[in-house]
């Protein structure tokens, strides 16, 4: 497979060519270049998928103040090109099960993409299980529902990635709150890390931070201050993170005992029909 550097260079070149064709008004050339461009982008996405899927657990959000340094900095800016991609990236960035609305908020503010509309995400969830059934090894990762810790049934809205550890895919009663707090932290960190990306990007993230921070307790009026908001979210998270983990871990054994499919997509809730009483 072509290297990521080679692919990125080719994509850049094709984009320039497309712009030139557009400027000339040469529609035929534009159509042809666009096809090449899309093929190259697909190829690049596969390389990314492969690389990201090999990182098996969700990465915690960068701690506030620590800008990514070293080799990461030289990577091209990654933007999702499909809804599926946007979902996986949001989940990995935040490191907790999120619902479609949260995924959409993150995708819009962080990557300025509009792929991950709630509807797209919901239908994605169905498609993924179908695709898994056809070929469990067909994709590098699958988008899965979080699994309720008690019933081991799929949670209604929260999503995870199949490559995560089992315990990270389980939903305890605390998890929705934990996920919200982690989303706040990821947003606060992103605002801090953002200055280089231009004022437009940062503004979107700040708006998201202000929105997310509003229901947090004891906040001063300057809601979009990432340091202050981060601190409040962090201190609440500290109060519940251990309990959340304990509850999720307690279900690990039961989850491991399920079939491969149910381990990823949850076991259907059994309805103990009242008709049995009449039988």
């Amino acid at each position, binding site marked *: 497979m072509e290297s990521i550097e080679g692919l990125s260079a080719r994509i850049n070149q094709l984009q320039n060519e497309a712009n030139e064709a557009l400027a000339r008004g040469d529609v035929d050339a534009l159509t042809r270049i666009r096809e090449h461009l899309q093929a190259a982008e697909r190829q690049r996405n596969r390389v990314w998928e492969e690389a990201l899927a090999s990182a098996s657990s969700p990465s915690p959000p960068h701690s506030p103040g620590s800008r990514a340094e070293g080799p990461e900095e030289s990577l091209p800016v990654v933007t999702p090109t499909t809804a599926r991609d946007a979902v996986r990236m949001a989940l990995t960035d935040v490191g907790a099960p999120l619902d479609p609305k949260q995924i959409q908020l993150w995708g819009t503010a962080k990557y300025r993409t509009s792929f991950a509309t709630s509807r797209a995400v919901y239908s994605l969830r169905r498609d993924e299980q179908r695709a898994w059934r056809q070929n469990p090894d067909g994709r590098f990762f699958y988008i899965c529902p979080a699994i309720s810790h008690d019933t081991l049934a799929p949670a*209604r809205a929260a999503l995870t990635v199949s490559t995560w550890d089992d315990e990270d895919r389980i939903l*305890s*009663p*605390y998890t929705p*709150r934990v996920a919200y707090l982690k989303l706040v932290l990821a947003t606060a960190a992103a605002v801090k890390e953002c200055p280089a990306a231009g004022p437009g990007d940062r503004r979107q993230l700040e708006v998201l931070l202000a929105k997310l921070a509003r229901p947090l*307790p004891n906040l001063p009026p300057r809601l979009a201050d990432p340091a202050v908001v981060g601190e409040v979210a962090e201190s609440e998270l500290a109060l*519940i993170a251990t*309990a959340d983990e304990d509850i999720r871990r307690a279900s690990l054994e039961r989850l491991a005992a399920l079939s491969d499919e149910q381990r990823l997509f949850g076991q259907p*809730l059994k*309805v103990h029909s009242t008709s049995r009483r009449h039988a």
Partner: protein
Amino acid sequence: MSTDEFEARLEAFRGDLPAVRPNARTVAAALDTPDCRRRRILEAASVDKSELARHLGHPIPAAQSPFALRRGNLFESAVKENGDAHLIAELRKQIDLPIPATRHKDLSSSRARTKGLKEMKLRAKETQAALSLLLSEDPYAPNVLDHAVTSLEVGGSTVYLEQDALAHYTGNKLYVVEIKSFPVINNQVDPVKLRPATRQAAVYILSLQQTLARMGHSPEKVATDAVLICPRNYDLTPTSATLDTRQELRGLRRQLDRAASVSELEALLPQGLTLSAADTEHCAEAVEQLPNAYRPACLDSGCELAYYCRSRARDAGETVALGTPVRQAFGPVDMIDDVLAMADSGIAPSRYEQDLAADLIHMQKLYRAAGGGAA
């Protein structure tokens, strides 16, 4: 007859008409017309009365505009987004919910693949399981229950109600949360909106009290204050208040005591009677077999059949069809023809009665000119 059998009979009676889920508003409103058996039977059978009214040719304008409905849904999802973030924030303000008490459980529909009454029964069971865990003081028991289903006994039949949310923390009371989309402007709520909201909260509280009692717990564990969450001003930023529902609760209990019993309803529902979406005449005949008690108050109580029942009352020549002032003016004389005869009798009517009689004569003329009634 067992409850199951009566439920099956009610379902057969509904025929192919769409079903609707009862809610606190419909339960409270039906209690305002306690004498009407027709409404009770139709509601017990979950008949969509607005659909029925349309079939019968007397549709009633929707109680809520599509715009208001949409705003309501938007507001509820704003309150509940991000793991109930705003709901939790308001609970912290109103009932001093401790910071770590954020254990959430979603008891909404799609968890189990059932529909209709069966789904509600299943969800009521799931809610009871969650409540038992909560009341056992298990430190990990979810203390914010979304879309819990509780049940209320009305004259011996069970009505399942979906709550917006229930909240509780160890050692304290269980609170009913009501999410409403009417605005709080300068800390003021329109009393016209607040009154029904308080009454609906009381219905939810009563059904939660009954649910706890059936589980062998004290109904005292339910707070008689409900937490009301509304948008502040005109945007969708949530704010909250507590509503004291004690007075409404007393009123509701009195009304429930008066509600017709299941055995009475059973006796009134003719065997084999069914409604049919395809056949209006058949539908009307079936409805007419259920005794009603039309009052002008039917309109205020939001009964969707009000226009239909009123037109029937008018056809039958009852003064009640002409509204409260007319009915009150003529007291015990309840047939329009009798009133007209009085007007012809030579007894000098008062000024007010003259106007009324003139109106009646005019309407009667118009009505007959249009071909209504016997000449």
